[in-house]
C-alpha cells in the first residue's frame, strides 16, 4: 500500500470519504463505472482492455473469429455476418475490419446512473457480437462520448462522430435526451445518419421531426393510453387524476392520458398537466389531488417527485390506484419509506420486458451475457434498454451488409427496410411505411411487489428480482390500437 505521509493528507481525506462512499456494497459500484471513452472494443478482438476487470477471465482473448463455447448461442449466432469485406461498399465509419458505432451518452449528467447501465449493457452486447465474429467480418468498435446531458456538448460530440472519414461513425446506437436528439434531427438527415434516441416522445415517429430518428418501443402518449385502459378496466375506475411535468415528456404522457379518459368516459377530476415543477414544494398539487379524490392517478414525473406526490397524497388519505409513464418509477424507491405505499397502490408501466420477468430467447441471452461479462453488476432492469439498442443496431447493420452497401446512405436504406426481432425483450419493430402503420402500440404493466425486491442483488444472483410481477404485456388496448397517429400528441 502507498505510504501515507503528511503530504498525502488531502488524498487521505478524500480516501476517507471515498471509502465511506464505497462502503455500501461492491456490486452497487459496478454499473456506474464510466465506460471507456472511445473504443470500447478494439478491432483485434483482444479484450484485455475491456472496461471492467471482471472480464479478465472471459473466454474472449484473441477469439475474434472463434465463437466460444459460452457464447455460441449468444447475440451474433444468427448474424450471418461473415461476408467477405470486399463485397461491401463503404464510406465513412467502416473499414475492412472495423465498424464504428457512436453512443452520444450521458455519463456524468442528470441521467448518468441510468445511462451508464444502459451503455454498459450495450457494451456487453457488442463484446459478445465481436467474440462471435462481428458483423460482416468486421469488429464493432464503440465510440462512446459523454454529453453530460448538455445540448451544446451533445452537438459537439455529434459533429465529432459525424466526421466524414473513417474516424467517423456509421450509426448512433444511442442519442441520450429528447432535446438533444431533436437538436441533431435535421443534421442526421443531412449526414445520412441514424440515431436511436433515449427518449420516447411521440413526435419522433413523425418524419417531419425525426425522419432518421429510430425510436425504440412505443411512446409516452400511447403508453398512457394502455396503462389507463388496462388499470381502469381491471379496477373499475371512473375518475382520473393527472399529474405531470411540463414539457415534451410530462405533457406527451398527459395528452395520452386525456385521450384515454375521453375514450373510456373517465371523468378527469384533477388535471395537473404540466403542474408539477421538479424541486418545488408539491403541497398544492397534493392538496388539490386529494380533494379531487380520483380512483386512478396517472403520473408523468421522475421517481423523486413521484415519491413526493404519491407519498404526500397517500398520507393525506388518498387511496387511489397509481401508475405512470416510464421513467416515473424507479424500483429503488422500494428501499425507502415509500416502499410499502408503492406496494399497495402503484403499478409500473414500461416499454419492455423486465429482468427475468419473461421467459424468452432474448432474456436468456441477455442474462447469460451479463453474467459472463459483468458478473458483479448490480441487478437492474435498465440493461434491457441497452441490449435492445444493440439488437436494433445490429439488425440494421446486418441488413446493410446483406445489401452490400455499408455506406451511410446504405445504412439509411437498410433502416427503412429492416424489421427488428427483439427476441421477446420488447415488441418487434420496423420503421418503414407510414408512422400510423409502424408505431409500436404495446407496452407492459407490472404490479409492484415489495417482497420481490432485493436491494443488494447482482446479475449473477438467481431467484432475485427488482420488485415487479408482470400483470400484462406486451399489451395493446383498444384505444391504442384504434388511435390514428398523424402527429405528436404534444407539441411544445
Amino acid at each position: 500500500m502507498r505510504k501515507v505521509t503528511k503530504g498525502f493528507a488531502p488524498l487521505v481525506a478524500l480516501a476517507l470519504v471515498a471509502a465511506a462512499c464505497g462502503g455500501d456494497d461492491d456490486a452497487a459500484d459496478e454499473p456506474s463505472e464510466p465506460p471507456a471513452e472511445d473504443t470500447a472494443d478494439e478491432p483485434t478482438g483482444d479484450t484485455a482492455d475491456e472496461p471492467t476487470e471482471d472480464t479478465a477471465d472471459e473466454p474472449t482473448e484473441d477469439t475474434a473469429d472463434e465463437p466460444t463455447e459460452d457464447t455460441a448461442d449468444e447475440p451474433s449466432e444468427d448474424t450471418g455476418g461473415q461476408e467477405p469485406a470486399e463485397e461491401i461498399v463503404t464510406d465513412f465509419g467502416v473499414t475492412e475490419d472495423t465498424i464504428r458505432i457512436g453512443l452520444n451518452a450521458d455519463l456524468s449528467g442528470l441521467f448518468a446512473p441510468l445511462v451508464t447501465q444502459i451503455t454498459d449493457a450495450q457494451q456487453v452486447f457488442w463484446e459478445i457480437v465481436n467474440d462471435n465474429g462481428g458483423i460482416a467480418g468486421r469488429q464493432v468498435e464503440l465510440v462512446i462520448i459523454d454529453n453530460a446531458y448538455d445540448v451544446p456538448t451533445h452537438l459537439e460530440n455529434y459533429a465529432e462522430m459525424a466526421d466524414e472519414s473513417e474516424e467517423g461513425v456509421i450509426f448512433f446506437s444511442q442519442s441520450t435526451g429528447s432535446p438533444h436528439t431533436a437538436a441533431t434531427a435535421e443534421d442526421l438527415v443531412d449526414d445520412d445518419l441514424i440515431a436511436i434516441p433515449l427518449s420516447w416522445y411521440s413526435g419522433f415517429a413523425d418524419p417531419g421531426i425525426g425522419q432518421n430518428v429510430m425510436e425504440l418501443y412505443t411512446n409516452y402518449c400511447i403508453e398512457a393510453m394502455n396503462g389507463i385502459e388496462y388499470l381502469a378496466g381491471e379496477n373499475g375506475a371512473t375518475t382520473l387524476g393527472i399529474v405531470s411535468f411540463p414539457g415534451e415528456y410530462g405533457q406527451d404522457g398527459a395528452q395520452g392520458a386525456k385521450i384515454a379518459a375521453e375514450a373510456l368516459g373517465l371523468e378527469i377530476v384533477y388535471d395537473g398537466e404540466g403542474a408539477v415543477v421538479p424541486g418545488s414544494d408539491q403541497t398544492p398539487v397534493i392538496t388539490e389531488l386529494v380533494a379531487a379524490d380520483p380512483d386512478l392517478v396517472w403520473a408523468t414525473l421522475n421517481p423523486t417527485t413521484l415519491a413526493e406526490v404519491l407519498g404526500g397524497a397517500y398520507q393525506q388519505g388518498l387511496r387511489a390506484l397509481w401508475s405512470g409513464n416510464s421513467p416515473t418509477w424507479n424500483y429503488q424507491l422500494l428501499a425507502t419509506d415509500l416502499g410499502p405505499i408503492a406496494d399497495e397502490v402503484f403499478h409500473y408501466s414500461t416499454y419492455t420486458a423486465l429482468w427475468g420477468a419473461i421467459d424468452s430467447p432474448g432474456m436468456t441471452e441477455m442474462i447469460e451475457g451479463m453474467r459472463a461479462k459483468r458478473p458483479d453488476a448490480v441487478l437492474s432492469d435498465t440493461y434491457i434498454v441497452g441490449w435492445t439498442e444493440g439488437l436494433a443496431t445490429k439488425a440494421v447493420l446486418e441488413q446493410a451488409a446483406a445489401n452490400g452497401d455499408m455506406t451511410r446512405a446504405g445504412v439509411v436504406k437498410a433502416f427503412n427496410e429492416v424489421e427488428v426481432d427483439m427476441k421477446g425483450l420488447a415488441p418487434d419493430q420496423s420503421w418503414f411505411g407510414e408512422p400510423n402503420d409502424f408505431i409500436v402500440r404495446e407496452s407492459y404493466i407490472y404490479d409492484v411487489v415489495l417482497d420481490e425486491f432485493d436491494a443488494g442483488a447482482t446479475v449473477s444472483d438467481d431467484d432475485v428480482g427488482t420488485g415487479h410481477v408482470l400483470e400484462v404485456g406486451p399489451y395493446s388496448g383498444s384505444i391504442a390500437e384504434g388511435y390514428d397517429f398523424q402527429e405528436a400528441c404534444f407539441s411544445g
Partner: protein
Amino acid sequence: MARLKFDSTEPSHLVGLALLVGGIVFSAYQLATGADIYFTTLLKSLALGSVYALIALGFVLIFKATEVVNFSQGALAMIGALFISFMVADENLPIIGFFWEIPNPIYQLGGPEWIRWGLSVIVALGFAALLGLVIERVTIRPMIGQPLFSVAVITLGLEISLRVLANDAVKISFRSVDAPWGNGGFNIGAGFVNWSYFAAMITAAVAFVAVFFFYRSRMGISMRAVARDQEAAMAQGINIGRVFAIAWGAGAVLAALGGLFATQQPIKQTGAIDQDTSLIAFRALPAVILGGLDSVQGALIGGLMVGTAEIYAGQYLSGYTSVLGSGYPLIVPYVVMIIGLLVKPYGLFGTPEIRRV
C-alpha cells in the same frame, strides 16, 4: 445585537411594513376559511425553516470564525447524511471498510430501535466532525492570511469534489437513513403533520441553545474575539488554529444534521438520500444572506422566514398563474431575500462590515 429600526422616510422600510401588514391580513383570512390547512402549513413551514436554520447556522459558525463563506456546506450535508445512513443501515463500519471490514457493533445492538438509531447518529456526527477537522487542517489553515477569495474558491472546489464522491455512493439508489419516525404523523382535518416536522424543530432548537451557551464558554468567547478581530485575538494569545478547527468541526456537524433532515419531510418524502440531497445548502442560502452571514440569531430568523415564505407560496400562490404554476416556492425565498436586503443590505441581523465583504 443588531436592531431593526423602522424609518418612515425610507421607501424600502415602507415596503417591508406593507408586506408585514399584508401577511397578517392574509393569515387572518386563511385561518378563518381553512384553519386545518393553515395550521398544517404553519407546522410544515416551521419544520422547513428549522432545517434551513440548521444549515444556516453551520454557514454562520464557519464565517464568524474564518470570514469564509463555506460553499462546501451542501456536500458536507450530504456526506454527513451518508455517514448516518452507513451507520444505521450497514453491517460494517464505514470508512474503515474501504481497507478491511469491521462489523458495526451498534448495528448488532438489541433493544429499542430508536436507541440504536440515536447512537448511530451520534457516531456518524463524530465522523462528520472529523471530516470537518481534516478539511480545515488540510485545506483552510494553510491559507490563513491569504486572500479570502482564494479560500472561498477552495471551498467551492471541495463542494464539487465531495459532492461527486457522495453522488457516486448514492448512484440511482435511494439510501435510507431509517429515521424512527418514518412516514408517521397525524391528521389535522384535511392536513397531515409528520412526526419528522417536530424532530427537525427540536433538533434546531437544541442546536441553537447549544451554540448560545457555547458562545458564553471560554472557547466561545475566544471564537467571538477571533470573529471581531483576528490579529487582536492572536495578540491576546488565542489559538486561532483551534478556533478554526472547532468552527469547521461544528459546521460539519450542523451540515450533517441539515443533511439528515434534507432526506426527511418536509423536504423529501422518501426518507432517503438521493442525488439532489446536497442542493439543500443552495436552498438555505437565502436564509443565510437574509439573516446576516455573521449572526446566529439571524440564521434562526432567516431560516424560519425563508421556510415560511417557501411553504406558504407553495400552498397559497400555486396555480394562480399559468406562467409559474406550482413553481412559486422555487423563487419566493429569493424574492424575500432581495426584499430583505433592500431593507438591510447586510442582512437583517448582520453587522455593517459585511457589506464590504
